[in-house]
């Protein structure tokens, strides 16, 4: 069911629009789809903010709850876990949703999913700061706060996919499952190609050492 939003969004700045989406997901995303209010620049900033949040979470959580070995901080792994995973998910979603008669463009999916990450960032950063000042018994409150952030993000993600492709709810869930499957396929093929590449390099290296030892 298509509907055009009747609200006048012309004067809203990009940032206020972002928080408007947090409070009214479906209407906000409809605006984005039909009136092209999404901004690619802002979505890149949000992704970078997410990346920084993960690093801060790794190192900045208080001693009482931090289980990570501080020597093992590897921002390349974190980069892989956040931005690369995000990109693979979006690509996989776009692939499967095109096959399922979705109407979303790649850029739109990218922007809406990036906007959906904002509650997570907004909740996780203060929680990480507060873990430095709590006692073990109070940690449960912070877990609740973080859960609210994660839950809100999930709701926004589902709303994003539903609105962008104009699905009904059942088809949205199906497309999410298929997206997960797509990520697994991408992972499998990349591991396969990596090991094949390694074999190729070893082959070249063996031939080279054979030749050098022979002559």
């Amino acid at each position: 069911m298509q509907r055009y939003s009747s609200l006048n969004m012309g004067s809203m700045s990009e940032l206020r629009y972002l928080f408007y989406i947090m409070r009214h997901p479906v209407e906000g995303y409809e605006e984005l789809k039909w009136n092209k209010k999404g901004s690619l620049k802002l979505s890149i900033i949000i992704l970078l903010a997410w990346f920084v949040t993960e690093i801060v979470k790794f190192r900045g959580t208080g001693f009482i709850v931090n289980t990570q070995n501080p020597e093992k901080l590897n921002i390349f792994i974190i980069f892989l876990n956040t931005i690369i995973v995000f990109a693979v998910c979006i690509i996989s979603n776009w692939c499967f949703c095109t096959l399922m008669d979705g109407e979303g463009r790649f850029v739109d999916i990218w922007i809406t999913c990036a906007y959906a990450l904002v509650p997570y960032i907004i909740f996780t950063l203060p929680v990480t700061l507060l873990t430095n000042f709590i006692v073990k018994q109070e940690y449960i409150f912070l877990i609740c706060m973080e859960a609210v952030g994660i839950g809100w993000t999930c709701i926004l993600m589902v709303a994003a996919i539903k609105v962008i492709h104009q699905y009904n709810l059942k088809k949205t869930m199906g497309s999410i499952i298929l997206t997960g499957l797509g990520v697994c396929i991408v992972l499998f093929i990349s591991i396969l190609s990596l090991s094949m590449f390694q074999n190729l390099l070893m082959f070249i290296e063996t031939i080279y050492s054979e030749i050098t030892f022979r002559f």
Partner: protein
Amino acid sequence: MGGMDDMKLKCLSCIMVFVIVSSFTANTYAHNLNNDGAPYNGYNYNEFRIVATPNGYLPDRAISGTDCGAGQFKNPQDFFVDKNDDVYVLDSGNNRVVVLDSELKLKKIIDKITSNSGDDTLNNPTGIFVDNEGLIYIADKENGRVLILNQDGHISKVFGNPKTDTLPQNFTFKPKKVIKSISGITYVLAENVVNGALEYDEDGNFIGYFGSNPVEFTLTLFWKIVVSKFLNKKQRMQLTRNVPIEYASLDVDEKGFIFTCTDASRTPFPTGQIKRLNPLGKNLMKNISYDPAGPEFINSNTTITTNFIDIDVDKDGFINILDSGRGKVYKYDQESSLLFVFGTNSGAGGAQLGTFKMPVAVESMDGKVLVLDAKKNNITVFVETAFAQKVIKAMKLYRDGLNEEALEPWREVLKANNNYELAYTGIGKALMNDGQFKEAMKYFKLGQRKNYYSDAYKEYRTQVLRDHFSTIMYVILTIIILIYLIKNFKKLQSIIKAFRREV
């Protein structure tokens, strides 16, 4: 043009020199040799990694049968140190018991075993125990009985097959280890008995089982349970049975607690490898959240696997476990903290002092730990180092709750070894009792104890808030007033203007 090529050549040669030089220096970080001449390095486990420590025990000497004048031992399977510090060596290959005193000099040899109906011999006995009255208990494995001898070799009692319906019909009784606790009950570990240790009373009657290992619940077991619901009776009988793992060895302390060790390294979740059982058979050993020697136990290296073969509790209550797979002795305290690791299997094929070929038993005397080697046919004596004495002194005070008195000993330990996490926790506890919460927090962080850190932080936070309460309240009040002013700025402005106009 020539200048550019020159520059490029210079850059390239610089980079090449750098790469070559760095590849030389990259591998030359020297392993700090802290072993004081022993064939093994001391180490311990911190929260995230393995750290080097000074050695706790150094090999002092090795006593073979010929050294003490008793003739060469032949495949000795067990030995025992009784309350007078006499060492009873069960020389299984020669069917005799060699008694040495605390200096490991020959005291006597019991090679004639007499009973009321004539002479008797042992057949590959594997366990020996001497109780407080001087009676010698021998697990005579191949003869299928437990013998109780007097000091002159005369058989006092014989414990035989426990005739019970809980064991299968064709069960052959093969006792491997025997101990007697002060409560008067004799505990026997027998081969192929998976229900725990067999309990006998004073007269040799079988009372029951004691403390068996639980079956580890793994995914394959769960699958088997699910599948067996669909099979008929005949097929179910053909399924392999999952039985618990037998105990490898056991020991008893003065309070009557039984300590057992199991070689559980073959299961995916190795737990319960050391158990401290109360008289009801309940395990009191604290479950540790991370296994301090975990990487060694869980590591499934096909050529070297951990194989716990003997356990011993010394007079101070510390536990020594012998791992015959790696040839190491681990010393734990009863709160599951790893204190020391010593001994090794590798190194000159067991020819060097301090290495083993096939260690079978471990016992302890004051300040010494003895290990019996069945292939080398000797007893290796390990002596405490000064570092070990410091640690044990501090541990005993800490364990009894005397945190204040343990403060100085722990500082001594830290002077010798900065990596000892236990020492930091000990000092932190003493400081917390003293009321110095900020210092205590610092030490708990070094000792990686989150629980104690949380407690200390709670006290510290209360203290800070209490000290600066007035300042904090003033600041909060000012902020509230400011917010109110800023929010209602325009309204206030108009009120003031109206007020001025009236005036």
